[in-house]
């Protein structure tokens, strides 16, 4: 079974301190695959990048969705993860993949949060839109608990949802709606 079937995928990625999470959507917004990859060895970026490249080679996505980070005084992510994002941008350019970057402000507003939102709030908002993830919603975290490894999955899914909302607005031909965030 080596014949060609044309699938169009959109790969949404969210690197974490432990590795990365990914959600693969089909072009119509349907969920196809998802997962959380833990990288335990040294040189996390190199290993994570190799894993992402493997995903890219397997699924050949049309678009890559990642978080927008700023390199200012308060970047929000560690320098390692910002470097990984730069590597992903370069990969996308080499492989002619469209890259879409959204800030957490975009994500919060698109998911319907007016002000601040915790990671748990975002996970619950994502789970309402993607019922397959309901079983993965972590319990509200207490101060003494470490972060659930599944949180990254919800962040990756949230970025993917923002991408689809944005593209739907763009396709509807209403630029005001598309830019409105």
């Amino acid at each position, binding site marked *: 079974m*080596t*014949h*060609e*079937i044309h699938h169009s995928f959109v790969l949404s990625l969210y690197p974490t301190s432990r590795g990365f999470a990914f959600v693969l959507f089909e072009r119509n917004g349907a*969920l*196809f695959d998802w997962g959380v990859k833990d990288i335990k060895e040294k040189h996390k970026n190199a290993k994570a990048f190799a894993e992402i490249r493997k995903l890219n080679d397997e699924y050949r996505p049309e678009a890559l969705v990642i978080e927008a980070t700023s390199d200012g005084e308060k970047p929000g992510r560690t320098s390692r993860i910002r470097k990984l994002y730069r590597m992903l941008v370069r990969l996308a350019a080499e492989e002619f993949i469209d890259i879409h970057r959204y800030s957490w402000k975009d994500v919060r507003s698109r998911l319907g949060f007016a002000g601040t939102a915790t990671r748990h709030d975002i996970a619950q908002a994502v789970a309402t839109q993607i019922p397959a993830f309901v079983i993965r919603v972590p319990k509200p975290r207490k101060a003494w608990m470490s972060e659930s490894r599944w949180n990254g999955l919800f962040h990756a899914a949230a970025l993917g949802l923002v991408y689809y909302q944005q593209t739907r607005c763009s396709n509807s031909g209403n630029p005001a709606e598309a830019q409105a965030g």
Partner: protein
Amino acid sequence: MKKQKAYCYLRTHRRVWGLAQKHLAALLGYQSRTAVSRIEAGKCVPSLEIAFACQVLFGVPPDAMFPHVYQDIEERAMARIYRSYEGLLQSSSIPALRKRELFEAALRRAVTKPKRFEGV
């Protein structure tokens, strides 16, 4: 351009409902999860019984659950139908006309049928 491999949707639907391979194997009547793993990876073609069992369980018809298998079968069947159709072009008997009508309908369906790659 690298070639994209063929996918089946069994893994997607299984994971959407939080089923382990072992549990799905038991639901489909397999002794171990190996067969499910092989079907999901596209290493083997599911039997008709398994394809219908998947439809019963997930409500997804076999052509949408295993589009790669369907397309493979469709291509081979269409080649045979077209050869048969060409063989009947010279004939004008009523049975031949009736068969040609059937083959033309099949060919039309193959061209116009929307590809149902249903995700979740």
